[in-house]
């Protein structure tokens, strides 16, 4: 079965850029799903099984930190690795994200090589 990724970002531009960067990094997912915030992402994950989640932090409705907290409480999805892709590069926020289960982070702006180095080993 093909690999699936879920991209969570309130910016449609960033979702397109992340999709393009995955392709440029040689990470060919068969299915790329998108959500505009944590609430939408949890709805998507009720119906779809994905291999990895790439999430922004600063989003309306439900931000990336709260999404991690909610996801950690749902048995069916808590093991899915999450990479935070964010402008929020402060150590304390990233430490909180890791404590809630994030597998790593990529700081915006980013290069396809950085995407490959961090996401590649997880898929």
């Amino acid at each position, binding site marked *: 079965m093909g690999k699936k990724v879920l991209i969570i970002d*309130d*910016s*449609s*531009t*960033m979702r*397109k*850029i992340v999709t*393009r960067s995955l392709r440029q990094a040689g990470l060919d997912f068969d299915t790329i799903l998108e959500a505009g915030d944590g609430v939408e992402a949890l709805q998507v994950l009720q119906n779809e099984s994905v291999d990895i989640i790439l999430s922004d932090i*600063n*989003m*309306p409705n439900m931000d990336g930190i709260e999404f991690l907290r909610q996801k950690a409480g749902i048995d069916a999805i808590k093991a899915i690795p999450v990479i935070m892709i*964010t*402008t*929020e*590069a*402060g*150590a*304390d*926020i990233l430490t909180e994200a890791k404590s809630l289960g994030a597998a790593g982070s990529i*700081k*915006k*702006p*980013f*290069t396809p090589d950085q995407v490959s180095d961090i996401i590649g080993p997880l898929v």
Partner: protein
Amino acid sequence: MDWEQHVIDATTEVFSTMLMMEVTPELPRLETIEPFDHSITGMVGMAGQYKGMLAIHACDQVAMAITSNFLGLEVDSLNDDVKDAFGELANMLAGSIKAYLSDNSRDIQLSIPSAVCGQNYSIDFHPHRRSTMVPFTSAEGTFLVELQLEHQS
């Protein structure tokens, strides 16, 4: 603290990394622009240890060309893609500026990005805040990056 250099460093990095565009800073403008004419402004508010905002301004044609580069798509109108792209550019610039200003990301909070556009509009200027507006030239034309900040004691 050299805020102008932070603006230059952040803008150069974002445009070279995410848009593959070389941009060249010009001398900072000493006066604000009022009103903006047939332009778009992407902006992000900052609160906490520093209060203010980061904005990127461009005329319609330059904004469409920058968005085309950003998305790898032809853009021929000032549509939602352009507004979203300028909001996201402001977000990345503000994130870089925030990292320069504080190691602790809890010290400064960023708002959700927004964008305004129109034929004739102004951006509110607070004279008690320190302000810098740096023009950048590129193959696509000139745009401005503005930082207004007030340190909260």
